[in-house]
């Protein structure tokens, strides 16, 4: 990995208003959980936290991660600055690995920020700091999955947001819910499977979803493979597709 490229892309991705906006968007699930828990007893609060956390971030966190991950390289292309980072004597593999790493770290940073309000809220309301800890796996797994898949899209396509939104809402939101075979390709469900493996989730949190079986280790392995595939696709793109 090239540290200079990684640092550059990470700082570009997490800069200014976009960082604030995406952090706010990623926090919607946690804030919604906090608000929903208000006035409930401890047992109910835990259940509500799990239900909200397993549903609201599926849209809000996913979109925030989509925007961040695709921006890692898309910003450089759209801004006309890609030649400055592309025309450098690092191998295509190094370029791709550094870019994917920047995308993952940016996604993880915002995911962690998004998780915080729910964690603080659950701590304040239930008095326990551990209620929201398993959800950290959900947020982190989603960050890794979306970060690895969407970063190459940002290099390959002009209309990455449309493609990404179609994946999130049509593929994951509708098709994966209706067709169990498609569920295996849903990053959100992969992340949810890790969450479900780490916590005894409220039945409503699992309701109406083709929840995957892999569990925490299966999810980790799947995400590792996805990250590798993302790097391979980006390496291929760097070698074979126009940079500008």
């Amino acid at each position, binding site marked *: 990995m090239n540290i200079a490229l990684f640092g550059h892309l990470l700082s570009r991705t997490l800069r200014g208003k976009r960082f604030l906006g995406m952090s706010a968007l990623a926090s919607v699930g946690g804030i919604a959980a906090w608000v929903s828990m208000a006035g409930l007893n401890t047992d109910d609060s835990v259940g509500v936290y799990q239900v909200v956390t397993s549903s609201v971030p599926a849209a809000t966190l996913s979109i925030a991660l989509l925007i961040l991950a695709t921006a890692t390289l898309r910003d450089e292309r759209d801004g*006309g600055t890609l*030649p400055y980072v592309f025309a*450098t*004597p690092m191998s295509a593999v190094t370029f791709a690995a550094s870019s994917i790493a920047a995308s993952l770290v940016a996604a993880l940073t915002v995911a962690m920020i998004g998780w915080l309000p729910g964690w603080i809220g659950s701590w304040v309301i239930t008095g326990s700091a551990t209620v929201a800890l398993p959800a950290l796996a959900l947020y982190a797994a989603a960050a890794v999955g979306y970060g690895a898949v969407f970063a190459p899209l940002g290099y390959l396509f002009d209309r990455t947001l449309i493609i990404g939104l179609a994946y999130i809402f049509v593929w994951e939101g509708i098709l994966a819910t209706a067709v169990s075979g498609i569920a295996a390709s849903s990053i959100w469900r992969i992340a949810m499977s890790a969450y479900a493996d780490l916590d005894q989730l409220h039945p409503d949190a699992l309701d109406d979803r083709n929840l995957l079986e892999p569990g925490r280790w299966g999810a980790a392995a799947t995400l590792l493979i996805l990250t590798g595939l993302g790097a391979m696709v980006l390496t291929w793109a760097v*070698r074979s*597709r*126009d*940079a500008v």
Partner: protein
Amino acid sequence: MTAQAIGLSKWFGQKVALSDVTVDFSPGVTGLLGPNGAGKTTLLRVLTGLQVPSQGKVTILGLDPRKDRSVYERVAIVPEDEAVYPDLTGRQFVALRAKLGRCSDPAEATERALDTVGLSDAADRALGGFSKGMRQRAKVAAALVTDPEVLVLDEPLNGADPVQRAQLIDLFVRLGAEGRTVIVSSHVLVEVERMTHRLVAMIDGRLAAVGRIDELRSAMTDKPRQVLVTADRPRELAAALMTVAGVEGVHLGRTALEITTTEPATLARFLPGVARTHGIRIREIAPADESMEQVFRYLVGSES
């Protein structure tokens, strides 16, 4: 030869941007000339590996930039886009390129490059606050920071004021004289002419001409040549020259004649004798159509 394109074509969907271009570049400054949309930028992008050729082959310093990215240690690009990172300072921008370009001492290389383009004093200001000309200089500094053997500049003088243009032109000439291959694209003929007499002209995605300006002009045998003759009695000389074979017309000025001829060699042979016969004193003879603009106008005309 340090950079070469062989049978290079590039198309985007139905649009053909480059068509079967074969050209090579050697050390020194070469001007890549053509009107907007001629394919200059596409040629430079494909040549430097930013775009993949649809057909044909590219080598730069003997390597295919798409397959061997180590070539970027020795090749630098100044893209046409005005884009820079507006929040980075000039120094940060150049230092970034130094780090990405594997400079052994990025800090030293950065200062040297900034000094070369005369940006040291403004280097701690954000690029977003730079004038267009200063941004161009920052881009040139970012390219020079790796001390490249091949420097590819796409419209590098855009936005620069006359003083900055003169400084950049001097810099490119100096870099070429140092033995680097400097390829400069421009649609402003006068600028290219001040940098070099070596020309690659493109029109409609095709190569229109390659060579020195005077060579190109001489090769255009189908075009009448124009010769400027300064004499003490231009009117009499004009009348006398009308009988010389090949002379198609004489335009009479106050002290000079602009002679249009299809046989410049015949004119050169007869002119001294005609002047001597009529007792006319010739002060100066000079070609009137070997400027890059004139040559390019011919090229565009012949292509269209």
